[in-house]
């Protein structure tokens, strides 16, 4: 895609991230980096203050699960606390 449909007429230049294929490349790249980091755990015996945190991939799994549950919980929270934007105005 050479021309984003949102881009203003004054900016005809197209950016690398405008192409969804590049975004997908970036996304896959991050997965590769992540998996390499987990693979490092097999080579490098990580030392940690807490023994269970030395398990292979502990931080990777914890980070992923933490963020997914954070977002899912926040979605539930939104159901309870969401009000119109002018709620406090009158």
């Amino acid at each position, binding site marked *: 895609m050479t021309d984003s449909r949102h*881009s203003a007429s004054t900016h005809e230049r197209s950016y690398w991230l405008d192409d969804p294929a590049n975004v997908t490349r970036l*996304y896959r790249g991050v997965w590769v980096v992540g998996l390499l980091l987990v693979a490092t755990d097999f080579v490098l015996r990580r030392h940690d203050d807490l023994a269970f945190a030395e398990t292979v991939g502990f*931080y990777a799994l914890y980070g992923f699960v933490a963020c997914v549950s954070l977002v899912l919980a926040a979605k539930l929270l939104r159901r309870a606390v969401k009000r119109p934007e002018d709620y406090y105005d009158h």
Partner: protein
Amino acid sequence: MTIDLPPGLLLIGAGLLAPLVPARLRPAFLLLAPAAEFAHLLSLVPGMTLRSEVFGFALEWVRVDRLSLAFGYVFVIASLLYAVFAWHLRGRLEPSAAMVYAGAAMSAVFAGDFLTLFLYWELTAITAVLVIWARGSEHAFRAGFRYIVVQLASGVLLAAGAAWRYAETGSLAFGAIGLDQPGGVLLLLAFGIKCAFPFLHNWLQDAYPEATATGTVVLSAFTTKLGIYALARGFPGTEMLIWIGTAMAAFPIFYAVIENDLRRVLAYSMNNQLGFMVVGVGVGTELSLNGTVAHAFADILFKGLLFMSMGAVLLRTGTVNGTNLGGLYKSMPWTTGFCIVGAASISAFPLFSGFVTKSLIMTAVAGDGRIVEWLILLFASAGVFHHAGIKIPYFAFFAHDAGIRCREAPANMLIAMGIAAALCIGIGVLPDLFYSILPFAVAYEPYTASHVVAQLQLLVFSALAFAVLMRTGIYPPELRSVNLDFDWLYRRAALRAVRRTTAFTSARIRQLGAIVSHAATWALAQGERRTSAGQFMADGGSTRGMALWVMVMLVSYLVLYYI
């Protein structure tokens, strides 16, 4: 050794004089003040003091030690950054009030007794509300009003706690306090309001996002960090603080995920960072207290940088709502870059400041054997990257292109952001140099292979979680909305209760009035009837008779008097 010039006074003086300086020269004048203050601060060494006796109270106006110096350095850096960032302002109110505010906060961290602390504590509250009101909007006015009520409540608690302590100990000196006396509890509450403890926190998310593009930057630096300083001085090793801090680190991030106003997201994330600092105070070891001071120092810089980048966006586009933004990296590439540095720092990426400061606290918690707290804090660390590290830059500068084409931020803003970004990276790259200004000697090495890999795993997989949720459409979209928080209790529930009570009371008063007026009408009618019928009590009696009775009374009074 005695000091001639208390630190902070230069800033206060400059702020007070600034309105008189011609508008063209004012920015330079307001930049010179923190520069001079910085030079002055570098000449101070621990052990210096300034004491005097006022109305029989032994006051210590200035006490220099390593704890106050560390906060002093970062406060003066923050006021310098603000002076550059707000260089383009032509109004009198905000920059002048902001400089007095910065000076008051700085004077407060050097105060050696509660009375001096109280004076500057109140001065920060009054000047900060002027900064909020400088926005000039209805929302800012109301939020500022709520802000000042809460802050003055903190001041009242501080005064009451100090007075109670004085009655019991006979001293006003501000040192370790403890909770064994009621005065200590009041002081903890006073500090807790400034630190935004759970349920005492909403003034922060309420007021800061309502200030101007520049005002929020200066507000973010001082009030909460002054609270952290006071907590670190007064309550190190108070175990309760570990749980309070853990709750602070965890809860705000849920709100940060669903909040639309990106400066409010940052306010929630600030609350979360304050949580880490409070935990550090609670653990109370040299390592953890170093962590608290280091993280407060780093937070002022990276949170200031993030608020600056959002301030630049607000200035150029007129909004910081996630719903209206996106794709701004095309128009504001430098601001985008600086924002990403701030985001990497708050997320504790290796080579950025958060990595070398937050880990001091995490290591201290783990070393204390507090596994549950450590796991919650690790959850909060992942969450920080998620909502502040990714969400802020993503929704403002990337996401879908909202079609906004604007100019890059003005040069002065870019310079301020550049300096802040350089400091964030500097701290991350040269931790030993930075550690040398902390209160205690540091024997901690952040850059071990294990630590770097562990942190990168945590962050990369948090990013992947965000990406997966985005690409699958599970991630909640940004929505224009208000999210109810604890402040609902006083902004709605209490208001309703007051209205209902007032309505109830006035209805009862009306009923009572009606009864009285009915009774009076009836009595009058009775009197009229009796008069016309010539009955008892209806005749007025004779004047002679009355005079006689008065004489009898006076004589008996005279007689009684002489008996």
